[in-house]
């Protein structure tokens, strides 16, 4: 029971962090059709910016400034890079962001070094909030939950209650029609791209000190975010939300349960020994494949239901 509650909370925190990254990506992917490989790079940039800013001014200004910087970079990329590449087709766009991801990773390595930087939780939040069954729950995780919940509320309100949000929703499913109605779709693209990268930057600011701020963080986070977006389905924020929470929970719970297929078979009176065929596969424990489960799920859902959980069209 205690393991369950603690894992549930941790899974929620991780899931919300994933959602913050994935929400921007899902908007970008469904609107512009661009599989943005540089999205996780914005997450990394956010963390590094926050680290540098918090050294000089403090963590709280960094919470605002770093995402804004990321958003500006995103707007620049869209206006001077992507828009130019757009005429060469989707694959060219995708490859452009792929090159950008390489570039940003190397740039980060050259600016901040190869080793992880000591980006820490601010002192104000560095205390255990409460104890459940003897396990401490840090206040910073609660803060992360709060920020991501606020952000989720803001996105939802923005998309459903404001004029620009409605236009974005229209452009999400029918970009040509929205443009024919006189809306400046390219400008909306820039806006969404900038907002998406800013969100990724924000995720980096609060996720960088929760995890480790290092040059490889974009490469470890990137594929998972893709999985979330594809799993949730294109053009659906709620699908994306469910997928993020699901992935967060799966990954945290997989670490806790130390079971394998062999244990399951043993329940039915079938004992696996080293001479059984495929013994190596049967005896792999769940924590070891925990990080793989999302990819397995993505492959399966794409093969059997290519539009994802709640998607409006095929990927």
């Amino acid at each position, binding site marked *: 029971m205690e393991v369950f509650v603690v894992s549930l909370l941790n899974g929620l925190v991780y899931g919300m962090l994933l959602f913050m990254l994935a929400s921007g990506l899902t908007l970008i992917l469904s609107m512009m059709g661009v599989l943005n490989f540089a999205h996780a790079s914005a997450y990394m940039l956010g963390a590094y910016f926050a680290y540098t800013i918090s050294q000089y001014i403090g963590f709280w200004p960094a919470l605002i400034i770093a995402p804004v910087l990321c958003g500006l970079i995103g707007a620049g990329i869209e206006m001077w890079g992507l828009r130019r590449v757009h005429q060469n087709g989707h694959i060219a766009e995708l490859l452009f962001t792929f090159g950008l991801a390489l570039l940003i990773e190397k740039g980060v390595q*050259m600016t901040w070094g190869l080793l992880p930087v000591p980006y820490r939780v601010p002192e104000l939040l560095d205390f255990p909030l409460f104890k459940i069954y003897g396990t401490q729950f840090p206040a910073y995780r609660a803060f992360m939950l709060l920020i991501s919940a606020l952000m989720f509320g803001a996105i939802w309100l923005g998309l459903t209650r404001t004029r620009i949000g409605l236009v974005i929703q229209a452009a999400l499913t029918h970009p040509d029609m929205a443009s024919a109605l006189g809306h400046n779709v390219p400008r909306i693209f820039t806006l969404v791209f900038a907002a998406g990268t800013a969100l990724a930057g924000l995720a980096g600011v609060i996720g960088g000190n929760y995890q480790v701020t290092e040059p490889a963080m974009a490469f470890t986070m990137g594929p998972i975010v893709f999985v979330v977006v*594809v799993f949730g389905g294109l053009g659906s924020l709620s699908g994306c939300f469910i997928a993020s929470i699901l992935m967060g929970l799966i990954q945290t719970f997989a670490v806790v349960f130390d079971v394998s297929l062999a244990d399951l078979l043993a329940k039915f009176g079938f004992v696996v020994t080293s001479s059984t065929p495929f013994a190596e596969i049967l005896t792999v424990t769940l924590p070891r494949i925990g990080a793989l489960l999302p990819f397995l799920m993505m492959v399966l859902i*794409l093969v059997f239901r290519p539009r994802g959980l709640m998607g409006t069209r095929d990927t």
Partner: protein
Amino acid sequence: MNMLRRHWPWLLVLVILLAFPFLFYDWTKGRHSGFVLTLMSEIGVMAIFALSYNMLMGQAGLLSFGHAVLFGLGAYCAAHVVNMVKAGTIWLPTELIPLAGGLGGLFFGYVFGWLVTKQRATAFAMITMGLGELVSAAALMFMAFFGGEGGITIDRVMDTSLVGVRYTSPWQVYCLVLAWAFIAAALMRLQTQTALGKMANATRDNFERAQFVGYDPRMVRLMQFTLSGFFAGIGGGLYVLIYEIVTFDTVSAAKSANALLAVYIGGAGGFFGPILGTIVVVLLQSGVSLLSNAWLLYVGVLFIVMVMYAPGGLIGLIFMHLPIWRAGRMRELLLPYARAFPPALLVLLGFVFMVELASFTTIGAAQGKRFTIGGQLIDTTAPMPWVIAIAALVLGALWLRHEARGFRQRWDELMEGSKRAQATAAPKPQEAVA
């Protein structure tokens, strides 16, 4: 004789490639340069890999992010076969080991292909990415087949050669790689002309119409994927013979990305583009990575510049000159090119200088390296070098922009002229000897 007349460039390239290592031959010690031979063998293997990747990307329009899975699994299969031959369980000549890798690739190409080819476009790309992650993680997990982190080591000296060569020296291995590279390239070239190759093009351009004509696009994709796995596996088998070890990074995403970079930089449109791209990427990887910490940055920048300004790749750039070449007016482009060259060089130097300054202040300093140009130590923390670098970059860029305008004008005139010449000229008689 007719064959020879039509295919002489292949022979010429073969002779050049055989002769090239002798430029680096150490006559005093009487042996080849190991570095050059390994580098060229690597180019050979990666060229096969890139060509097999282009069977998907260029021919069938399928963007794969996990092509190294087929390459790596082929390599693992070949490694196991070598170990079995060594142990005496089976007999197979050394020359045919790459074929064993190819069959492994074919098998896994069919198994995985059955799964991934259900979808196309973005979904296909995402499935291959997921599969790539799964296999590279599995490679670390299962000891029996993949050997964990240590990988699987082999000894290529098996004494089962058909031609009596023991493959103890890199030169012998290089010859084997060259032979297989030519066989594989020729087969892939021929494959583009088969019905399957043509149908792959058709499903790429318009899969709905291909469906109407009566072909099942999925079967076309599956067959193309399986064949591409076969050739990737051949590359994997050669890889094992060169390095005598196969580890999990042969199936990793980085390896897949290499193929993608090579194909795109070279140009996916023409058959020979990927080979060109492979040469550039491998040279950057092996050559520049020795000189600079920031080689990945150069690859990234080159890649972005190619995507933005030359979507057809290097081969596309070359083919752009074809109409002017036919009109016999290439000479008139010499001056514009010569005028654009110095500013381009200035931009390049400024950029490289700046990147190197940055990388030496952070990464280099941590590794205890010093930045020297021609024996002159350069203080990377002083403002002067930075000012020079930035000035070169900015001035060069402005100058290049100015020259580019003139260049484009000249280019357009020439293109216009060659088009008009083509329109007025009578249709040329086809090749005299058909």
